[in-house]
């Protein structure tokens, strides 16, 4: 997918000369794209300039009022802050543990495949199910983790304590993403020529020094790529995790931006505000995608 940016419009030397066939081939994809992607996106943009009255009877054009209101609203600012904390923590946890596991795997020889199998399958677990599993483990009444924490003198309750709730969604979201990052780190490590590390070893660099001077710099393209992917994941794919564990609570302590769009749009029925939030999210995705694709070109010259 990323390689596309470098050679945009390549075709074959010879081509079929059929005039209508290519349109027919593209028709299903374009129809779905138009009806379910572009049209709704356009609607969201349009809606974001409108406001409905309380009974849904009258709609007025309000320009950027929905946007200005958002940035005046403490709830939205709270959602931004929550998203930031959640994204950064989840990305850090998911990347660091995956890197640690990949480094450990890189030292093994015969057991590599077994460990890989045992570590990759959470990728297949639905985020919603991951949420339910951790919600069960952290259940204040019967969960095993609160029980252990109690032994340490900590009274866990994510239904009341915002910090606990945040920790819960971070752990559940990271757990699900570790396998993905792990696979890419393993691939990244394998692509580092053994000769480089051997040369460093001959030069007298110990394992820790080797990691920081050889492995980590050479792994930086992979790391950067995974960072972007994980941030996208935390911002857009973790809705189920939150919905299944905390429902955005307590007191909006885990309401990330995507959750708020849903909440305002479907529960609160505040369409104008929800649309404005959607548009802001689109902006964020576009920025992240551009970063991802610009990084491709850098990777090529690396």
């Amino acid at each position: 997918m990323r390689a596309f940016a470098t050679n945009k419009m390549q075709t074959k030397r010879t081509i079929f000369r059929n005039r209508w066939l290519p349109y027919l081939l593209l028709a299903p994809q374009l129809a779905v794209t138009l009806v379910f992607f572009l049209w709704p996106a356009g609607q969201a943009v349009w809606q974001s300039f409108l406001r409905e009255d309380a009974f849904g009877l009258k709609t007025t054009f309000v320009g950027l009022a929905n946007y200005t209101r958002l940035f005046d609203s403490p709830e939205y600012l709270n959602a931004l802050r929550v998203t930031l904390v959640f994204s950064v923590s989840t990305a850090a946890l998911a990347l660091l543990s995956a890197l640690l596991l990949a480094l450990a795997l890189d030292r093994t020889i015969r057991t590599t495949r077994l460990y890989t199998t045992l570590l990759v399958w959470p990728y297949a677990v639905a985020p919603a199910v991951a949420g339910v599993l951790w919600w069960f483990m952290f259940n204040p009444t019967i969960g095993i983790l609160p029980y252990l924490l109690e032994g340490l003198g900590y009274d866990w309750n994510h239904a009341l304590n915002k910090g606990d709730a945040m920790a819960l969604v971070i752990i559940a979201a990271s757990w699900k993403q570790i396998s993905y990052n792990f696979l890419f780190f393993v691939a990244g490590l394998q692509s580092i020529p053994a000769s480089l590390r051997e040369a460093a070893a001959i030069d007298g660099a110990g394992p820790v020094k080797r990691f920081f001077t050889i492995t980590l710099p050479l792994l930086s393209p992979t790391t950067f790529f995974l960072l972007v992917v994980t941030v996208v994941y935390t911002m857009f794919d973790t809705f189920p995790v939150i919905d299944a564990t905390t429902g955005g609570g307590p007191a909006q302590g885990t309401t990330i931006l995507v959750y708020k769009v849903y909440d305002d749009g479907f529960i609160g029925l505040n369409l104008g505000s929800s649309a404005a939030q959607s548009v802001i999210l689109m902006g964020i995705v576009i920025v992240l995608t551009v970063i991802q694709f610009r990084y491709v070109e850098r990777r090529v010259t690396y």
Partner: protein
Amino acid sequence: MVENQRWLDVLAHLTLILGVAVVALPVYLAFVASTHDPSAFVSGLIPLLPGDAMGETYAAVLEGGVKSQMSVPILLMLKNSLIVALLIAFGKIVISILSAYAIVYFRFPFRQLAFWMIFITLMLPVEVRIVPTFKVVADLGLLNSYAGLSVPLIASATATFLFRQVFLTIPDELMEAARIDGAGPFRFFRDVLLPLSRTNIAALFVILFIYGWNQYLWPILVTTDEGFTTIVAGIKRMADVVDSEPLWNYIMATAVLAMMPPVLVVIAMQRLFVKGLVETEK
């Protein structure tokens, strides 16, 4: 290995074993919970070893009914999930491979525009256009239908680009030879391109099946009729009990059933899965 440092090897194995344990623990506990009857959960701590009520629990949730507080049997949800996941996976593959074919092997007006339209879908995940997309689906009368559950999700820039990459690596001469051999666009696609993309299709299928199976937000929105609930979406409805304690054994049995199919697919096709995952990001 660069040098033999036993303590590093030991540390590596310890790290991995710890990792495997952390990764497996939630699933193990869920499984254990699903093998006990409800009385096991009143003691204040979840059981740590499997019980003997496994058969009853799973039978109860699969059939549904009063006992499990489920109006819809899990068996039906599993069926729905399977149908939706297959529709999404096949749908994405079919429309993407056709689009990629058009873009790579034909030159036509508006080709660039078509390409960018597909590319833009990357930037519009369903989560950011939930409300208007829901409206479109509602207006088309697709709520509570398999089409409504799958069709809005089957546009795929990622899959299109993957097939495009695959096609670009197929030598030009193969198409030229086929044309000289009297194969038109249809025959070339069916006789040469499809067979040569087989492993890529399979790898992509694994990824997309998981993607489709694990959908959550979209099914919740477009199904009000419980007969169309997928298992991943349904598990939430089950856990949402207001007044009483959740029926842990049933919920966990459902969770186990919900993750079983995609997890098995990943384990059974690990090689294909890794290939698919890494290649879609190329």
